[in-house]
């Protein structure tokens, strides 16, 4: 029975697309990106799948909050937060970057990373080096280099100021450079 006595609340959202349609058009196109981010953050296929599933179901539940133009960072933020809480529950201590806030950079000029090693690094070496990065650095590197987000978008996804994004990217990449270009090792240090 339909009555017209329903008082419209001012916050009643405009009825537009249904949640399912929103999910299918706004969120699902970013599934591979979501899974890729999870793969890099969780460092394993099974964990990545679990995290992606949990994150995407969250996204479905809150799909009304997703805005078309910002869908990608919105989805990635949910994935990022889900991965972090899964890792946190596990208590691996991987979230802690304090030990690394000062990069173990060699000031010895003779010990420069070798550019040819950096250039020649293969997929396995790159993934191994990324796996060694502290989570806070790894996530900004992946969001930038793989997902192509701007610093501002990364700041929103990671919930930190743009200046922090910049310094974490700088440190993360410095660390990668050292891992991949360490002289005397082939394909990066382990």
């Amino acid at each position, binding site marked *: 029975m339909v009555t017209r006595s329903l008082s419209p609340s001012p916050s009643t959202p405009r009825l537009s697309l249904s949640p399912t349609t929103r999910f299918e058009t706004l969120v699902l196109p970013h599934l591979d990106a979501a*899974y890729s981010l999870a793969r890099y953050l969780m460092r394993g296929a099974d964990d990545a799948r679990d995290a992606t599933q949990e994150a995407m179901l969250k996204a479905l539940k809150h799909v009304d909050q997703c805005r078309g133009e910002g869908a990608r960072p919105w989805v990635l933020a949910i994935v990022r937060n889900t991965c972090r809480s899964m890792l946190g529950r596990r208590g691996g201590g991987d979230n802690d970057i304090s030990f690394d806030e000062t990069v173990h950079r060699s000031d010895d000029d003779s010990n420069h990373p070798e550019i040819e090693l950096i250039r020649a690094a293969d997929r396995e070496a790159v993934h191994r080096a990324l796996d060694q990065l502290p989570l806070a650095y790894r996530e900004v590197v992946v969001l930038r280099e793989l997902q192509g987000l701007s610093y501002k978008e990364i700041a929103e996804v990671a919930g930190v100021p743009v200046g922090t994004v910049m310094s974490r990217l700088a440190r993360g990449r410095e660390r990668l450079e050292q891992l991949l270009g360490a002289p005397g090792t082939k394909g990066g240090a382990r």
Partner: protein
Amino acid sequence: MSCEEIRKQVDARLHGELSEAETQRFDDHLVGCAECRGLLERRTALRETLKREMGSFEAPADLRKLLVTAARDAQVEVRAIRPIRPSAAWWIGVAAALAIVAIGSWQLGARRSDGALMSEVVLESHVRSLLGQHLTDVTSTDQHTVKPWFNGKLDFSPPVSDFVGQGYPLLGGRLEYLGGKQVAALVYERRKHLINVFLWPTAAGNSAGRASGSMNGYHLLHWTRPDFTYWIVSDLGEAELEEFSGLLQQTEARR
């Protein structure tokens, strides 16, 4: 600018995230500093290597399938939780649920430019008219008041009939914007149940047949005549809605 600052900014420089002034200062420093030029070169190499070797992963197919199913099932849950006193949120849920069922069961091919089915659009419009205060723009039971009201507001003159004698009094009409065009909405009532009739001129060469669907107490009827395209939505019983559509079609036939 010091080498230490260059070290902090080198990645932002490569990523195009420095301001014009910062970029200028950065580049100025590099002219006179081989050390920092080497740094920039290494980071450029790193960037190329990462681009080449990081790679995306494809999500497992079964995960994709699971999510598609979950998205559809979510609607079933919305329908299942039916509060005794329907709230606005409930109606929105119903609209969403109906819209999905509409997509599933009405393959009418009437698509909006953005891909949503016309049945979805019509249902949303119906529920919206019940939710808000915007049921009618012109409130009159007199077809001779309602029909002229549309003049000048639409680029067509919708046929308007009153069926008060048959128990379907006209309540009024309003303008709607559906699927990218202005359409006429006529509102009828049957024992406190509201009926929305949406109509607009049939596009040339468009002659979809008659279709009907129902879900959760709502029924939709749709037909296309050479002159006008009709959509009818109501929570009225299916038999009565059929009767009502019969009345409409009879008046059409007489035109």
